[in-house]
C-alpha cells in the first residue's frame, strides 16, 4: 500500500532484491522507457489527426471504456477486501466508512485530493490503530 503505480513498485522491489538500489532504478527505467516512447508516438498521431471527426468519436468511445476499467478495478478491490469480512467487527465498519468518505469527499464534493487525503489518512490510521488494540 504505497503511493505510485503498483506495477512500478513491483519493478522496484524485484530490482532491489537482485541488484540493490541501482538494480531497482534500472528495472524501473526498463519498465517505463519503451511504453513512454509508444505513448509519445501515439500522441504525435493524435496531434496530427486529432481534429478529424471520426478519430474524435473513436477517442470518445475509448475514454468511456477507460472509465469503466477504473470502475471495475475499484469494485474488484472492494470485493476482495470485504470478501471475508465480518460486518459486526468494528474494523470492517470503519473500513466501509473510510471507503465511503473517500468517495464522497473526492468524487461527489470534488474536494482537493490533498485535503481529503490529509484528513482521512491520519484519522483513519489512528482509528484503525485504536480498533486494533481492542482485539
Amino acid at each position, binding site marked *: *500500500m*504505497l*503511493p*505510485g*503505480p*503498483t506495477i*512500478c513498485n513491483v519493478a*522496484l*522491489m524485484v530490482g*532491489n532484491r537482485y541488484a540493490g538500489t541501482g538494480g*531497482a532504478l534500472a528495472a524501473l527505467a526498463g519498465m*517505463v522507457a519503451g*511504453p*513512454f516512447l509508444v*505513448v*509519445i508516438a*501515439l*500522441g504525435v498521431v493524435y*496531434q496530427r489527426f486529432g481534429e478529424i471527426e471520426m478519430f*474524435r*468519436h*473513436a*477517442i*470518445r*468511445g*475509448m*475514454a*468511456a*471504456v*477507460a*472509465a*469503466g*476499467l*477504473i*470502475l*471495475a478495478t*475499484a*469494485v474488484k*478491490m*472492494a470485493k476482495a477486501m470485504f470478501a471475508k469480512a465480518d460486518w459486526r467487527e468494528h*474494523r470492517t465498519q470503519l*473500513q466501509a466508512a*473510510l*471507503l465511503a468518505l*473517500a*468517495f*464522497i469527499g*473526492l468524487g461527489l464534493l*470534488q474536494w482537493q*485530493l490533498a485535503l*481529503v487525503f490529509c484528513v482521512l*489518512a491520519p484519522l*483513519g*490510521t*489512528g*482509528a*484503525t*490503530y485504536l480498533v*486494533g*488494540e481492542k482485539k
Partner: protein
Amino acid sequence: MNEQSPVVELSLHIAVMSLMAVGGGVVLLGPQVGHYVVEGKQWLNNEQFSAAYAIAQAAPGPNLLFVSLVGWLIAGWAGAIFTTLAVLAPSTLLTLGAIRLQARHAGGRLTQALGDAFAPISIGFLAATAWLFTRISNVNWHADALTVLAALILLRTKINPVILIAAGALAGTLGLI
C-alpha cells in the same frame, strides 16, 4: 513552450499529487491533474485531456504514462520528460525507503493499522476517480452506459481490457456515442 513555462509548474504539481495517490495509484491522478490543466490553467481542453488518458490506457505499459502525454501535449519533449520524472521520482524514493524499513518493522501494529486504513481509502479514491473521469470525458448518456457496460463485462469475464477499448473505439466511430 510558453514564456512562463508551464513545465516546472505542472511537474511540481504532479510530484506533490503523486505522493497522495495511494494504492491503485495512477488513476487517482487523472481527475486531479485534469482539473488542474483543464479548468485551472486551461492548457488543454476536456477532449484533449480525456484523449490523453484513453490513449495511455490503450497503449502497453503502466497507464501512468498518460501524464507523459499530457506533458507532451502542453510542452513537447520537455513537458513529457519532466512530468514523467515528476510522477515517478517521489513514489520511487518512498518505495525504496519503505523496502529498507520493512525489514525491521514488518508486522507491527502501526503497519497493520496503516494497511487497514489505506486500503479502503484508496478504493474510495478509485471509485471517485471513475466517477470524476466520466464527468470530464463522457458527453452523453450513451457514453455513461458504455462505461457501466465495460465495467460489468470486466467484472464478469476475463477479457483483455485492450479488446474492450478497441470495441469502445469502434462504437465511437460508428457514431453510437
